[in-house]
């Protein structure tokens, strides 16, 4: 079985996790299918194998913990549906990001997983566990990830690959032709090969594929512009929301203080002259007004959560911790900012994860060694940077052949330049400077080639 996740989705999970001041979780959307792989063996009988392929296309982050389950791990189907909406049919699994914990499913996670399997009707629901650890001085951090198939025996683990560019294969260009003196050969390939080239001697495919790339990049640019606008709108409304919360909190505090003062005033009055209570005095009128202002029940802007790590550590910051605006608070790392070795003491932690934690740790011997935060993670283990480290050849460039003289055929190169500049002009996306892209691609010689070629 093979599983994959795109680098962008993976990074996005890391990004959302970095923004959370507690554990983070969400759903995995994607596709599971059987693929036939054809292998041709030496006996020349092709054998087809069925390979199960799990593709994680996207993730759906939960805004907070306990959004679809409670302390006991009981899943609330209604909440689940309101979170997933029509994406429900694409769910193939879920994920959790935890700091400084073991690489195995906790008891509660297992309980939740069983229910999700049933409710979502995905027999082989997968679970992706991200575990974050740091060195004591926070200079080095590691993000470990394991993909589980909990519904299989022994909680099977699958390798999760991140497809990427891999080998850019620039070495595959041929810098010289295989020597051949056959006149027939030269004649045939010239005559029939001509199909591939346009009148300028440029391969037609080059232009065609470049157009595909260019159109794609234009689209990327355009959607990027839209995303940028949406980020700014979101930021602004979040700011407004935060301000309102602050104002409300301030107003409530003031009201509470006033009430308290009035009550105190009343008490001293009532001790001395009990009759006065029956008359609506000025102070009691005020107090009645004060009492009338509905002490609105603390609206759970977030669903009833157990306190997150931030709340536990600094109660006063209850406003700031729920805010996400890049105010000065963003300049200081929160204690729970990714990379902090600080984590809650066992007490609050236990509260956060509920009963499960204790049980989870004792369940079964974990086969994977747990790295404690205090040891430098991985590498030589001793923090040395040595050349003896195993290095994969990153693909060395071929030394250019000697007979590849500086045949700077200007006509050829200028034709190519023309080719490129002809086919590229970015559409001007209204109101978005982004569409024009960067003025200069930062190429090694620093020239503004970007403006020419793009």
């Amino acid at each position, binding site marked *: 079985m093979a599983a994959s996740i795109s680098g962008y989705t*993976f990074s996005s999970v890391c990004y959302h996790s970095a923004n959370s001041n507690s554990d983070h979780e969400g759903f995995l959307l994607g596709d599971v299918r059987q693929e036939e792989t054809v292998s041709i063996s030496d006996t020349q009988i092709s054998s087809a194998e069925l390979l199960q392929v799990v593709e994680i296309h996207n993730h759906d982050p939960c805004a907070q913990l306990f959004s679809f389950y409670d302390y006991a791990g009981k899943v609330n189907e209604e909440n689940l549906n309101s979170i997933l909406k029509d994406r429900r049919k694409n769910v193939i699994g879920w994920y959790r990001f935890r700091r400084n914990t073991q690489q195995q499913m906790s008891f509660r996670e297992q309980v939740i997983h069983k229910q999700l399997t049933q409710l979502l009707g995905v027999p082989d629901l997968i679970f992706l566990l991200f575990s974050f650890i740091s060195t004591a001085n926070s200079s080095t951090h590691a993000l470990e990830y394991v993909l589980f198939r909990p519904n299989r025996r022994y909680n099977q683990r699958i390798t999760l690959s991140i497809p990427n560019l891999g080998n*850019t294969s620039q070495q595959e260009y041929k810098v010289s032709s295989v020597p051949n003196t056959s006149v027939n050969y030269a004649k045939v390939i010239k005559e029939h090969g001509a199909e591939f080239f346009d009148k300028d001697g440029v391969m037609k495919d080059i232009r065609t594929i470049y157009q595909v790339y260019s159109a794609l990049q234009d689209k990327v640019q355009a959607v990027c512009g839209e995303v940028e606008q*949406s980020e700014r709108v979101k930021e602004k409304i979040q700011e407004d929301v935060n301000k309102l919360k602050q104002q409300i909190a301030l107003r409530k505090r003031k009201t509470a203080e006033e009430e308290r003062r009035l009550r105190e005033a009343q008490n001293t009055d009532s001790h001395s002259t009990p009759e006065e209570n029956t008359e609506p005095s000025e102070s009691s009128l005020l107090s009645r007004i004060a009492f009338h202002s509905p002490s609105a029940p603390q609206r759970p802007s977030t669903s009833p959560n157990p306190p997150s790590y931030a709340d536990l550590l600094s109660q006063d910051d209850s406003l700031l911790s729920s805010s996400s605006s890049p105010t000065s608070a963003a300049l200081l790392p929160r204690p729970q900012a990714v990379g902090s070795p600080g984590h809650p003491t066992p007490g609050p932690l236990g509260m956060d994860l509920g009963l499960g934690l204790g049980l989870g740790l004792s369940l079964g011997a974990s086969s994977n060694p747990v790295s404690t935060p205090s040891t430098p993670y991985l590498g030589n283990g001793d923090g040395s940077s040595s050349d003896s480290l195993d290095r994969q050849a990153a693909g060395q460039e071929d030394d250019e052949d000697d007979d590849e003289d500086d045949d700077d055929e200007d006509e050829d190169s200028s034709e190519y330049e023309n080719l490129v500049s002809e086919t590229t002009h970015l559409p001007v996306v209204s109101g978005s400077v982004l569409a024009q*892209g960067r003025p200069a691609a930062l190429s090694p010689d620093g020239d503004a080639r970007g403006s020419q070629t793009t």
Partner: protein
Amino acid sequence: AAVVVVFPASDAVHLESDAFLVCMNHALSTEKEEVMGLCIGEVELSRIVHIHSVIILRRSDKRKDRVEISPEQLSAASTEAERLADTTGRPMRVVGWYHSHPHITVWPSHVDVRTQAMYQMLDQCFVGLIFSCFIEDKNTKTGRVLYTCFQSVHAPKGSEYERVEIPIHVVPREAIGKVCLESAVELPRILCQEEQDTYRKIHNLAHLDPVTKIHNGSVFTKNLCSQMSAVSGPLLQWLEDRLEHNKHSILELQQEKERLLQELEAL
């Protein structure tokens, strides 16, 4: 020979989470070579280096472990920093560099440490970040991504340099900044330009027969297709998903704002 002493002058690094996102995207884009970029931000009086965004760079020398940055690239990056300064109204400059170690330990090599030391001669506060990725423990099927931050100092004996660990924290930022988005979408463009440059050199060779030319043209086509499948495509998908996510968030936030306004009125 004069001995230039290199001081590490930074106490810690705060990396904004959207810049962190771009670094991760970049590092995970290829497992076959090291990628690199520059960090833009400011250094506070407290000697904390604050990284607001990163710029993806082209590597002129693709030999392994050659992650030097040319003066022209630094200069162009400074221009970008100025642009960011204009946008944010804060003084911005190039404050560090990052590169990836695919399949390799996260610790800087001797070359890395030396390169870092050179940058520190120009700017004491300059910091280096390394992202290690595509690591897998075959026994436990555990994948790993690591990142570290370092500066260089003179080793006690000899004129060699050694690394000094610098604490690094990723600072939450719920909204992705404009500069970070721009950096992210530069990657496909840079990859295409690299391919074009290589092809142009090949194309200039006069003595290639038609079959070889067709071959080379196909290599170009193939490579561009790889770039589109592996980078442009997933990037576009992520952008679309992000847009969708933001639209939902905006709706919810607007509803919350309404509720809060009403609540405030009532008080």
